[in-house]
């Protein structure tokens, strides 16, 4: 049944009705002219509106819990020992508690992105007004997630007000469910976590669309210019401003001020983490240092003269670290204030004096106009003073030698290091004059600083690593194509068919943070391998930056080698963390534009389409944050599987399919409701891999979908087999499961592979070169795979 929503939207103002001159009518909102048709059954879904869809996912992709703690200490009944899935005092068992953690993590991440969106919306409405139109580029489907979840088509930034109100209300409900004495079922905790993940995608979409629309960020632009990236790109002789975090509001004022005053040749300005992405989208003069993993390293180098923080991915010790090197910290967002004095009402000159003199270590400054003026002035003043003093945390040559000689190889730092890096060995090598082990270690080190706290002989380990790696750091100069925003409708029209039929082997979305298991270079290697195989590579956030950090023999980065259109063999950067929304939304666009599926309020049908037909996989190889978990969970609810790096097991919950349980892989044929047992595709919804060699064939496998046509399946199978042979030195054990007919087998290998099938007991008619018996099912080009009974035309009994 279709619902009609008559949207009442009005411009703010007052008016007087003729004849009633004494009566003035004040209007907060004006009615909208247009009528919007909700096309699906779940506009503004409540907590349990999509529970049936979640159950379908959870029944096939069972939650797998890998607790980091076997205890619960959420309430004063505890601590409770839940080892072996025992119950705690409140009745929750370890499975329930683990699922509750998943919910909390998802809610935290969703809250983070939505609050970011809320901050931006306040600020942009104040600056541009509620009626500022949405403009994201050449798209009719401007806000795919908003449409699919809310059932509305927003036209102005003010239209996002009810969207964020909805997200905030739902998140409050979800958080309430995590209180002791509320939800107890792990399955329902997971359904709620999936709901939070979906809200996360929505919050991100709002945040990015409004900044694209108001701030002139690229609009579906496949040819954005390149930005410089790396720890070696800045001229340390100039005053250096570093913005840390995710929210462009404050950095935008700084960039505007510098632009107006022609200061880009006098001051270096760059960002760390996603703020950097958005700064380059906003102003081409901004540069990028790198991900959060570079934060402590760069601060300790002493190069920054001023640190500006906004929100998310800012180290909790940033003020402490900066203070040691007399780098003032200006906090510009209420969420991160570090106990700094609120100087929002003081004059810029007064604040500068206090910071330069060292009277104060930093300031909270919520007046962004003032931030814009203060930062460049402060940098010009304090820069020369700091540089004259040569402030850095890194030891000089002489101290370096003494420090490395002190190491007793006790291994304590290795035991505290999240990467278990062989620091003692590198110390020994450095003592003998060989810095190469430290240079290698520098790339694998995530810059957490834990090792500093472990060393019993007080070696400042991270500083030693950084000192030893100066040669490679100086060469750290890459290029990243600036964030493009959404994928435009014309690109979807061009590529959608290839994706659904499988002739483009898949979309691989590299997202998330820099907590890589074995160094940043792995991401480059993985992307290079997969893009050469014609996968579409979409990236965002820190992963997008890290992809641009390395060069080939000709000195070219991957962004310089591969164009940025949404077609096979291209490399796209959508933008910052909140631009992740566009990656997920691309699948909705394919369902809508290519397949004509209705979107408004129609989550389940869209997600079902994505799960069964679009070979898109998310890769969060270095994910560390709750936000990354929320994004992954949101993608999962939309039918997009995600693979994380090995650290991802510390998220404590995965969704893993069991291919040996045949009934789990029954789907319905939408044409008549008949049950079809299909190959496990996609095999998992969220899983981890130990190494990049394991990851690559897994990615190829995760791109299989029941809807692949034979040509597409053969292409996907080629990559799966080749990647497995190349990186795992074996034919995959389950390749045959994905063969439905001889047409599915890559032509070049058809005969030998058919021989292998015969050895497995399959019947082959060698004269006709046909498989006559063996496959799970036949290829059927008109097959309409679905997991949702109501979507079948005629349900078979």
């Amino acid at each position: 049944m279709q619902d009609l929503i008559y949207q009442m939207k009005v411009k703010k103002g007052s008016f007087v009705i003729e004849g009633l001159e004494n009566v003035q009518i004040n209007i907060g909102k004006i009615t909208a002219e247009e009528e919007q048709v909700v096309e699906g059954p779940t506009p503004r879904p409540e907590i349990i509106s999509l529970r049936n869809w979640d159950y379908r996912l959870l029944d096939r992709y069972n939650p797998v819990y890998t607790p980091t703690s076997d205890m619960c200490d959420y309430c004063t009944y505890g601590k409770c020992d839940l080892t072996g899935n025992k119950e705690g005092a409140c009745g929750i068992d370890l499975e329930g508690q683990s699922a509750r953690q998943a919910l909390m993590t998802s809610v935290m991440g969703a809250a983070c992105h939505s609050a970011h969106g809320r901050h931006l919306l306040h600020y942009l409405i104040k600056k541009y007004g509620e009626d500022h139109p949405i403009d994201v580029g050449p798209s009719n489907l401007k806000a795919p997630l908003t449409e699919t979840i809310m059932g509305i088509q927003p036209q102005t930034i003010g239209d996002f007000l009810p969207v964020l109100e909805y997200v905030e209300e739902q998140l409050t409900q979800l958080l309430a469910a995590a209180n002791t004495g509320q939800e107890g079922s792990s399955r329902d905790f997971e359904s709620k976590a999936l709901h939070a993940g979906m809200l996360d995608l929505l919050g991100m979409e709002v945040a990015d669309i409004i900044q694209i629309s108001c701030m002139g960020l690229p609009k579906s632009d496949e040819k954005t210019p390149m930005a410089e990236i790396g720890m070696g790109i800045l001229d340390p002789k100039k005053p250096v401003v570093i913005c840390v975090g995710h929210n462009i509001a404050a950095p935008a004022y700084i960039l505007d001020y510098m632009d107006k005053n022609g200061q880009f040749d006098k001051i270096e300005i760059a960002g760390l983490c996603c703020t950097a992405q958005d700064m380059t989208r906003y102003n081409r003069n901004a540069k990028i240092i790198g991900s959060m993993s570079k934060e402590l390293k760069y601060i300790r180098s002493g190069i920054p003269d001023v640190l500006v923080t906004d929100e998310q991915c800012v180290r909790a010790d940033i003020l402490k670290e900066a203070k040691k090197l007399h780098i003032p910290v200006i906090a510009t967002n209420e969420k991160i204030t570090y106990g700094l004095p609120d100087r929002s009402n003081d004059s810029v000159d007064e604040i500068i004096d206090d910071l330069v003199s060292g009277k104060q270590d930093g300031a909270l400054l919520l007046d962004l106009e003032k931030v814009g003026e203060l930062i460049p002035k402060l940098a010009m003043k304090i820069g020369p003073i700091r540089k004259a003093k040569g402030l850095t945390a890194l030891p000089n040559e002489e101290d370096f030698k003494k420090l490395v000689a002190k190491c007793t190889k006790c291994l304590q730092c290795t035991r505290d290091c999240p990467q278990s890096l062989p620091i003692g060995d590198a110390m020994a090598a450095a003592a003998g004059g060989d810095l190469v082990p430290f240079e290698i270690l520098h790339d694998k080190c995530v810059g957490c600083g834990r090792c500093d706290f472990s060393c019993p002989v007080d070696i400042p380990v991270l500083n030693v690593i950084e000192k030893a790696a100066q040669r490679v750091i100086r060469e750290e100069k890459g290029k990243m194509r600036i964030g493009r925003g959404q994928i435009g409708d014309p690109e979807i029209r061009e590529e959608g068919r290839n994706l659904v039929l499988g002739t483009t082997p898949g979309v691989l979305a590299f997202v998330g943070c820099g907590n890589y298991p074995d160094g940043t270079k792995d991401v480059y290697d993985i992307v290079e391998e997969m893009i050469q195989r014609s996968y579409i590579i979409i990236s965002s956030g820190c992963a997008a930056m890290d992809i641009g950090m390395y060069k080939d023999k000709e000195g070219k980065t991957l962004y310089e080698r591969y164009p940025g259109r949404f077609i096979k063999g291209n490399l796209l950067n959508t933008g910052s963390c909140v631009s992740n929304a566009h990656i997920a939304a691309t699948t909705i666009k394919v369902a809508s534009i290519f397949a004509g599926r209705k979107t408004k309020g129609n989550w389940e049908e869209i997600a079902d389409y994505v799960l069964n037909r679009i070979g898109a996989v998310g890769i969060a190889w270095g994910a560390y944050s709750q936000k990354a978990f929320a994004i992954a969970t949101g993608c999962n609810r939309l039918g997009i599987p995600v693979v994380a790096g090995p650290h991802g097991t510390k998220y404590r919950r995965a969704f893993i399919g069991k291919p040996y349980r045949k009934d789990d892989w029954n789907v319905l044929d939408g044409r008549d409701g008949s049950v079809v047992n299909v190959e496990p595709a996609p095999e998992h919804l969220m899983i981890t891999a130990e190494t990049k060699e394991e990851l690559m064939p897994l990615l190829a496998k995760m791109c299989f979908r029941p809807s692949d046509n034979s040509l597409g399946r053969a292409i996907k199978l080629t990559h799966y087999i080749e990647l497995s042979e190349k990186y795992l030195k074996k034919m995959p054990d389950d390749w045959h499961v994905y063969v439905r007919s001889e047409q599915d087998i890559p032509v070049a290998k058809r005969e030998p592979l058919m021989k292998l099938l015969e050895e497995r007991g399959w019947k082959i008619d060698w004269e006709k070169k046909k498989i006559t018996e063996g496959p799970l099912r036949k290829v059927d080009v008109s097959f309409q795979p679905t997991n949702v009974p109501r979507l079948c035309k005629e349900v078979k009994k």
Partner: protein
Amino acid sequence: MTKIAQAVKREKMAGKPSEKNVEKPVEKNLEKPSEMPSGKEEVKPAAEKVIDTTRSAVPFDTANIPGPKMARAVMPAVPGKMLARAKRPLLIVGSEVHDTDVLARAVAIGKTGIQIAAVGNAYTSLGDKGLDVHYINMHALASYLCDPNWKGLDGKGGYDLVVFFGITYYYVSQAISALKNFSNIKVISIDKYYHPNADMSFGNLKDDVFIAALDEVIKELPKR
């Protein structure tokens, strides 16, 4: 998983004293003490003199303290004997198996007929050694091992003992936390690190002690 987890919970709790109060909780978990040697006391004094794998039995990653139940530190003969007696044991090795000395021990164990799950990229070093070795993803393997209906890597039945080494420390530690809490399978680490989430583990070992310990394990295995 709910049903499985409930069954596990019932089984783990049935007829057992509160695990909260026992001093050596891991020993309580040994359901068949007669079949499962209980540690140091069973090891020949000569071997004990040479290596002691029960020292430094603290989580290798300092903060990896899961809760009141942590692995019992054992001498190599214990896993050796348990492997020898198990009806259907599984050895899991991962991306840290490639070192020549370590690999040789994995191969030696495999040669005794014990099936090997090669996780991560381990298969690249093991695939051509004529062993009963299968590639599988560690996270998926942990999930399947929690399912009593899983028929194993070769479809011939589930496992009664899982032994592992040579896998990224934190990764396998997390994976086996699923087995610890949601399965009845006995898990032993014979890695060079103390693994609190296993039922039994060596302490943190130096490389040479680790290799010697693996040799001690291998000594207990029947030759084929």
